[in-house]
């Protein structure tokens, strides 16, 4: 009851914050000048135009296609490699310094190389997204397994569990929250890399529109694209938060979303 009331209060506060944000945006656009920062209203009418005209639908789909393919590929590759590195200790010890080095390298540095091999088309863009997302997913899975609870492992051993039973029943399920954390970081970097790829290879998708409208000072339309990207980011992170809640459903649920 009390928590339900509190949750609805938070919703009210959020709406208030949104109104405040719009107000602030509007004031800034008036102060700075509408040609640099469009008002919320002119952005809205630009959005109506772009959506009605169908001019944003195709780039949106193209960006989502690149993003989803690259991310899916990163999940399919990153989780199993992380599982292998966590399961076979010597393999993990051998590879983890390289993985960490790759994590610390700005992976957009590889874009020229990728263009060289894959050209400027969707394959190259997917590769850039993949490269951004795969490392955090891999590291999340790997470190989740490394962090498994030694006491639970000993308990399972005392009951006669085999190594593979310990891996599948204790280590891997225990790593789930780390895997989901890796998925979240990967999703964020993947979205960034989608836009970067679209800017640096053949301009297309939402990134392409950003460049087009930005370079030609069509700021209201430019803002529509930025907001579309923010919306995608918000939806993805909300979805992954739901996954996270599901993965930790056995924990005490004190905090709402």
């Amino acid at each position: 009851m009390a928590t339900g009331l509190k949750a609805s209060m938070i919703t009210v506060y959020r709406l208030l914050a949104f109104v405040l944000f719009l107000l602030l945006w509007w004031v800034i656009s008036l102060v700075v000048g509408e040609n640099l920062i469009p008002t919320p209203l002119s952005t809205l009418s630009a959005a109506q135009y772009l959506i009605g005209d169908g001019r944003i639908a195709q780039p949106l789909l193209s960006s989502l296609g690149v993003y989803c393919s690259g991310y899916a590929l990163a999940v399919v590759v990153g989780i199993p490699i992380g599982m292998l590195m966590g399961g076979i200790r010597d393999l993990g010890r051998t590879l983890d310094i390289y993985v960490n080095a790759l994590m610390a390298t700005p992976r957009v540095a590889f874009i020229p190389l990728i263009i060289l091999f894959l050209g400027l088309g969707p394959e190259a863009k997917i590769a850039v997204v993949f490269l951004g997302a795969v490392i955090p997913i891999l590291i999340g899975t790997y470190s989740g397994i490394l962090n498994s609870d030694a006491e639970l492992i000993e308990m399972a051993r005392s009951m006669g569990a085999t190594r593979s039973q310990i891996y599948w029943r204790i280590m891997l399920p225990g790593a789930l929250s780390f895997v989901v954390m890796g998925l979240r970081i990967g999703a964020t970097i993947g979205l960034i890399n989608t836009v970067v790829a679209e800017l640096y290879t053949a301009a297309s998708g939402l990134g392409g529109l950003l460049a087009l409208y930005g370079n030609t000072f069509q700021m209201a339309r430019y803002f529509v694209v930025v907001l579309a990207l923010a919306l995608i980011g918000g939806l993805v992170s909300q979805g992954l938060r739901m996954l996270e809640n599901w993965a930790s459903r056995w924990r005490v649920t004190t905090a709402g979303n």
Partner: protein
Amino acid sequence: MNPAPPVVVSGVSKTFQRARDRSPVEALKDVSLNLRANTFVTLLGPSGCGKTTLLRMINGLIKPDSGQVLVFGEPPKPGPRIGFVFQSFRLIPWLTVRNNVGFGLSLQGVDQGEKNDRVEYYLKLVGLSRFADVYPHELSGGMKQRAALARALVTEPEILLMDEPFASLDAQVRELMQMEMMRLWSERKSIVLFVTHSVDEAVIMADQIVLMGPRPGRIVETIDVTLPRPRWDAEIRMRRDFVELRGYLWNRIREMVMRDPSSDFYTGESDSI
């Protein structure tokens, strides 16, 4: 001729290296111990006397450096015949109580129907049927340890090893759990080897008390307890033989602690410096 006892520990030594400075610690030195069938044995002694090491050795989790441990005539292997209950409960947090209790059976690949029946039976035995479908974090300490106990009992082990199982419970719950444990044991006897720091607990539960001393870990004395069972009346603690045994054990432990240079209560009267 008598058959060999089910558990035979003969001349066992074990040395560990400290993680800090790699210096050796003699956890156990020349320990010999036989456990007879259906006896409740408590291992009593101050910290650092190798009680837990001995327990883990009988389970087969670690091997002795020298000497021999035989369980049912063979070197022990962890498995369903030897149950283990830990101080820290060690329930799997993402499994419900029911699945925690069934964990050992699912490791063995016992079929679903039989598994469900046995889990149901042991949940009922420890009084947790109503909590079968909750997760461990929703349970109190006493309930968690009941669940862990049911998990150990569900494979119907012939030996039950308990490593200070009630040490993290509050005093009242602890005494209730002692009664509960005695009830369970009287319903289905097995060898229980029960590690404890508490003199009271050691006396009230045991058929036999094995008193251990620290640095190196060794057996100092073995005492048979002849107090009548059942012992769940409060009067038992007022019996003269209970009080005397308790007092005797207390003095022995205090002596050992005072003479141990690495304890906080070392008085330095010995010539070992």
